[in-house]
């Protein structure tokens, strides 16, 4: 896990190094031009005159000490900017992932009961939809439908600024109301994949001997289905969910932009517009961290489901 982060940091540095122009150029541009001597001084100040590997080493050390540099646009440390928005993205990513897993597994179990029925068709249709419809477009469509035409949900943001006082529950429901559409949008790409996998794996398990044994000893249908069959068919679904984490984070970037959700995605969008490279690089490091943590959680869940698995 640390290795992955180290590689991302090194990759970041390499890209910065290879890209045309450097920090000195950017600063000179914002100052409206600088002569050769000033440029040389700026480069010295930022350590750009040192050998490649020393620069690389310095960069890695700075990142390890949580110094991601300064944002040109906000004129704030990148780390502070990111920490301010990180919780919102975390909330969106994990709630969407949990929702899509929950709905996906529920649908999958249901579809496995009648493999050629309507629910299976629905699942197949939706996985095709999830693949073909760009997530930001789905988001805009939902926004048009449920915020503009039928105004049930707020158009953007995470909180209603008019609500100042109020206890925990007032704020909780406020955030939930704002979260609903972004969460549904993000979950819409993935739940069909999960349910397809869950259906397939349930069908396989339902034919196994231990399920017949469970039925034969007179357990109720619900008991057989949930305690015996489902528990044994979850591993491939959870494994796939772990692999999808990076896709969920990528999707979150787009969904956040659509709904102006105040997370890393909106920050990334703004830093593209304002050409704020340090912020973008910091976001890349942080979202990689988020994916690795997600993978770790997946492994732990898998182990809880199946004690034979060793991490």
């Amino acid at each position: 896990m640390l290795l992955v982060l180290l590689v991302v940091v090194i990759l970041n540095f390499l890209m910065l190094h290879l890209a045309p122009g450097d920090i000195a150029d950017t600063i000179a541009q914002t100052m409206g031009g600088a002569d050769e001597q000033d440029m040389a001084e700026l480069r010295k100040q930022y350590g750009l005159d040192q050998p490649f590997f020393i620069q690389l080493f310095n960069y890695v050390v700075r990142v390890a000490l949580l110094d991601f540099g300064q944002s040109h646009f906000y004129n704030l440390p990148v780390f502070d900017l990111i920490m301010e928005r990180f919780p919102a993205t975390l909330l969106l990513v994990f709630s969407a992932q949990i929702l899509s897993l929950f709905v996906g597994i529920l649908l999958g179990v249901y579809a496995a009961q009648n493999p050629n029925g309507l629910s299976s068709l629905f699942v197949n249709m939706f996985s095709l939809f999830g693949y073909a419809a760009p997530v930001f477009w789905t988001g805009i469509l939902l926004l048009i439908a449920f915020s503009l035409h039928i105004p049930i949900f707020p158009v953007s943001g995470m909180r209603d600024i008019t609500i100042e006082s109020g206890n925990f529950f007032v704020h909780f429901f406020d955030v939930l109301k704002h979260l609903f559409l972004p969460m549904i949008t993000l979950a819409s790409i993935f739940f069909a994949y999960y349910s397809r996998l869950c259906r397939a794996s349930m069908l396989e398990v339902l034919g196994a001997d231990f399920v017949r044994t469970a039925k034969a000893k007179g357990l109720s249908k619900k008991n057989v289905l949930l305690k015996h069959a489902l528990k044994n068919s979850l591993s491939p679904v959870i494994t796939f969910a772990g692999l999808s984490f990076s896709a969920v984070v990528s999707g979150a970037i787009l969904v956040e932009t659509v709904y102006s959700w105040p997370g890393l995605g909106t920050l990334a969008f703004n830093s593209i517009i304002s050409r704020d490279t340090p912020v973008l690089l910091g976001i890349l490091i942080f979202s990689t961290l988020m994916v690795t943590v997600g993978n770790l959680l997946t492994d732990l869940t898998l182990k809880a489901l199946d004690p034979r698995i060793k991490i």
Partner: protein
Amino acid sequence: MLENEEIEEPTIKPVKEIFLTFFKSYSAVTGLIILIGIAVMGFIGPLFYPTDPFDMVWMPFSPPGTDGFLLGTDYLGRDILSQIINGARVSIAIGFSAALVSCFIGVGIGSFAGFYGGWVEETLMRLTEFFQVLPTLLFAMVIVALFGSSVLSITLAIGAVSWASVARITRSEFLRIKELDFVLASRASGSNNLALIFRVILPNAAAPIIVQSALLVGAAITFEAGLAFLGLSDPNVISWGQVIGSNRIYILDATYTVTIPGIAIFITVLAISLVGDGLNDALNPKLRSR
């Protein structure tokens, strides 16, 4: 694809049979026809509909069908039909070439990892895992933001971040095939390693790689649309995602400026997915016998 006449090929069926299976599937043929239609629209369409997609030709926000503009005009009064036609070319071109780039990287890495094993495999698969963990969209955003947004840099960025699945599939096919007798026979008759990889094993591993690459084309098209939506598109060409992104703040005035390009992306990717499913059925003998 190379013809290996002396060698018994276990997984590849005669080309004719593959074609027959593919064309027997209604959905695959429908997908192929739609895809060809979109490609023709993108590459030849501008000859018949010469309106420049960047020209402000009429009043902003004319709804579809009014004043002779079939799909209406956008927030600057540009013709949306022309944007759709010209955007098709960009989407198809970037989609296919980015998939080709990832295919090259993925096949290269996967085949070397599967063939050589040992530390080569260990290192290369670590690299592949790394690219699976990386949030690809963000990584591509960083590349495009740093190296400038041109069609070339966008294509390379998409290709460079989405090869992991191809590498994994190629590796697992190589692991399976390299143990088969005909590979041993070929090695005994004096083929060197490179010949074994690219002329003996790779043609036999082609089927799942082709299917995966077909899926990658669709993914690359939505990927490009996502980048363009975020404002990372080549400013010199029109792109469907960019049309959505730039009209997004006006959805109160005109929803069609956003829905129409989205439908174009949706249909294109759907068609590719149908073709991919058809290819899968045609190339995979195990599935077909079911």
